[in-house]
């Protein structure tokens, strides 16, 4: 009887984990941009792995296997945020592609962002000329006036 209860618990947790992985994959296809997709992939990396490995820990018998599964989940939970951090860093330090996305979300009224949408590289070059560096985070803080000017000119 207890064995069957263990089986039921294992089945529920395993199917829940697969559901979490399926949700991650659905988000991976439905979202339109990398940073959103990263959010969706995090579900599968943390919740899905937790549920699957928890179900295996319930059904396992040996003590050493239990320890190995615990090490697996601890290691995955430590490395997944680092991976996400590096991916986001690539995305933000690369080009001005993310500005298009923020602009699409904030709508046309937003004046905090550069008004350019098509030629993002030109914006970057201008910023590089004026501020000395082409680094992106300065766009957000100091470029409000510039963006407004540019919008009027257009």
């Amino acid at each position, binding site marked *: 009887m207890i*064995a*069957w209860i263990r*089986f039921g618990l*294992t*089945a529920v947790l*395993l*199917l829940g*984990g*697969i559901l979490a*992985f*399926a949700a*991650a*994959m659905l988000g*991976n*296809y439905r979202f339109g941009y*990398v940073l959103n*997709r*990263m959010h969706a*992939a995090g579900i*599968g*990396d943390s919740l*899905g*792995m937790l549920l*699957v*490995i928890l179900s*295996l820990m319930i*059904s*396992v018998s*040996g003590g*050493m*296997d239990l320890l*190995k*599964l615990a*090490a*697996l989940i601890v*290691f*995955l939970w430590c*490395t*997944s945020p*680092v*991976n996400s951090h*590096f*991916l986001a*860093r*690539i*995305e933000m*330090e*690369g080009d001005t*592609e993310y500005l298009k996305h923020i602009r699409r979300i904030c709508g046309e009224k937003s004046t905090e962002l550069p008004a350019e949408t098509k030629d993002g590289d030109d914006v970057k070059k201008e910023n590089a000329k004026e501020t000395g560096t*082409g680094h992106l985070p300065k766009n957000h803080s100091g470029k409000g006036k510039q963006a407004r000017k540019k919008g009027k000119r257009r």
Partner: protein
Amino acid sequence: MLSEAYHTLYSIALVFMGCLLALALVRTIIGPRVTDRILGVNMLGSLVIAMIAILSQMLRESYLLDVALIYTMISFVTVLVLSSVYLRKRKGRKDD
């Protein structure tokens, strides 16, 4: 009876995860940007880790868990190395 039930459960789980693996592979191939592809590889890796862990229970082979641990580390290092190489390439282009 019970072992058959476990076998069926693990088989169903593995089949579903195989379908998700194929979807992750498609996402990796069609991803328009480099970060999409790296993210797809990362998801593929985590799915494979879960599959190996399930398989170790299904086949009663304890050493497959060691394989899963090593796979986790290699998947982590893959993303780290790819992103650092890509960042260095971008910086070199900026200097030019």
